[in-house]
């Protein structure tokens, strides 16, 4: 083999550097494409929906007339469903994460639970909707209510909360547990007074990301049969009902409802372009909710990484 001349070696190096630079440009192009999509999405919804950003839009019920229609029942429904979801998913998820990290022995039961959780995270969300339709709506008789929807979404985000709880707990060094036990605390006291408080920021991040996912979920809620046209609010506790009675404290959990994503879906699938405007405005409101929740979570995690030094 003939040795290369200096010029040839220079050419090889130049070619290699050129390829490096071409790839860099490709990388930056792909990244900016992602950014462009986000910007285009938001810009489109803001421009199209701008005429609907009025107080009335937030305070009106759905209507057949596009310009009078609003998202009152949708955002109230979303908030109530999120409330039920958080109430069910947070204690269950934290308890499960705590068990798997602090209590579980390495045996087959633990293995099954762990494999299960990682598999559940990959189950399509619409399958949770079918589960809820079969179990919550018909077996338990909850009907197409806020309770059914809240519990469905709670099951859906449970793996997210469990995984983030476990990660947060795993980051706590063993010396904290040893110190607590050395002064005579039981396992639960150690968890209650040390592990849970120290893991709190991490758990909170997971909870927010989970809820942000849940508030945007449409498919499982459609599957349990949420209505698309709701022109009333669930009964507030102790309010007067139409038949003269008074609503109980928890009557609202059994009420029919609609949520933001379903309202958007409904407006998007109508042929009348006037409703596109509503869909854009409602989409922007939903995006704002989800993105601000995500931003809080990202900020929390960022702060945590900076502040905690064991």
């Amino acid at each position, binding site marked *: 083999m003939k040795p290369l001349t200096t010029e040839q070696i220079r050419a090889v190096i130049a070619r*290699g*550097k050129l*390829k*490096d630079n071409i*790839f860099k440009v490709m*990388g930056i192009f*792909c*990244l900016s494409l*992602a950014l462009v*999509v*986000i910007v285009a*999405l938001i810009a*489109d919804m803001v421009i199209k929906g701008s005429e609907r950003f009025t107080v009335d839009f937030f305070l009106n019920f759905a209507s057949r007339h596009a310009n009078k229609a609003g998202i009152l029942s949708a955002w109230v429904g979303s908030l109530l469903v999120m409330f039920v979801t958080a109430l069910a998913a947070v*204690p269950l998820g934290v*308890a*499960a994460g*705590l*068990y798997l990290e602090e*209590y579980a022995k390495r045996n087959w039961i633990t293995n*099954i*639970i762990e494999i*299960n959780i990682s*598999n*559940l995270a990959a*189950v*399509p969300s*619409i*399958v949770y*909707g*079918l*589960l809820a*339709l*079969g*179990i919550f709506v*018909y077996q338990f008789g909850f009907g197409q209510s806020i309770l059914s929807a809240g519990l469905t979404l709670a*099951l859906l985000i*449970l793996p997210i909360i*469990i995984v983030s709880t476990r990660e947060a707990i795993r980051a706590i060094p063993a010396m904290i547990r040893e110190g607590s036990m050395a002064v005579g605390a039981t396992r*639960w006291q150690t968890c209650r007074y040390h592990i849970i408080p120290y893991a709190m920021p991490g758990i909170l991040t997971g909870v927010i*990301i989970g809820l942000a996912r849940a508030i*945007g*979920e*449409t*498919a499982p809620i*459609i*599957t349990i*049969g949420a209505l698309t046209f709701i022109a009333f609010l669930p009964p507030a506790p102790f309010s007067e009902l139409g038949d003269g009675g008074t609503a109980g404290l928890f009557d609202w959990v059994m009420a029919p409802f609609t949520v933001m*994503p379903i309202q*958007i*879906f409904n407006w*998007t*699938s109508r042929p009348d372009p006037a409703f596109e405007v509503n869909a*854009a405005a409602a*989409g922007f409101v*939903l*995006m704002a909710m989800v*993105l601000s929740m*995500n*931003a809080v979570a*990202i900020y929390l995690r960022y702060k945590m990484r900076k502040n905690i030094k064991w």
Partner: protein
Amino acid sequence: MSANNTTDLSQVSNRLAYNAMRNWKEKLIEAILLGAAAISVLTTIGIVYVLVSESVHFFSNVSIVDFLTDTQWTPLFDDAHFGIMVLISGTLVSSAVALLVAVPMGTIIAIYLSEFADSRVREISKPILELLGGIPTIVFGYFALLVVTPILQYFFPTLPGFSLLSAGLVMGIMIVPYIASLSEDAMRAVPMSMREGAYAMGSTKLYTAIHVVVPAAISGLAASYILAISRAVGETMILAVAAGMQPNLTWNPAEPAATITSYIVQVALGDLPHGSIGYQTIFAAGLTLLLITLVFNILGQWLRAKYRENY
């Protein structure tokens, strides 16, 4: 002295009683926590139970052979046909379009972020990708139908208002963050010494990335692709909004077609009586969907085990 002894003894017995109660309480709490962890197993059992029991009813009316081989899907017509291939074709075509976008884009972004970008670019890009991954799918559906489809129609005037193509493209963009972030994690886990070895031999960055880092991280990359496939197959709202919902046995992405997921949405939007054959079809469709994602997940775990490299 004796009086003192009795107090000591009663203190000891108090102490023992307290300890016994404390132990009992500890056991109780452990049981409650185990119960919470077991909910996930119950969820799985519930999913399998619901899908299988309704599907058993369904398959007592429709033969499995017809279900798998019929080329028509018209469950709500008088002349009912139940050919699941019609829905599977829509699912596979839209997923293929999505993966054609997401796999190259996601991989390029991952290689760029892990091998080329400086830490400042990485710190900014990762949250942006995370935000992209957090956008609700219904918003993506709106985007596909009312923004991407008109743009595509400008270039291809024959494209119908609903198509697997535009839904698939947007779905691909949605999946990019999953692939990018998982693949980047896998590539960053490759030890620096391997790169340094390659650089010492005179490799360029790109050569090192493609011939050293990517092969070393291949199990992580494969896992991210598999996750992307199951996301695409299970995605619902983008397709329900932008791909049209009429069943259509086609392999052409420029046509509208229903997928397994959008069919379930379509039926759920209507008012089907509990227990009717139409009601049962969505569970049979759901079972098919679950089996497809299960196959991919098992494949993914097998790939990961096969190509796992430890450094």
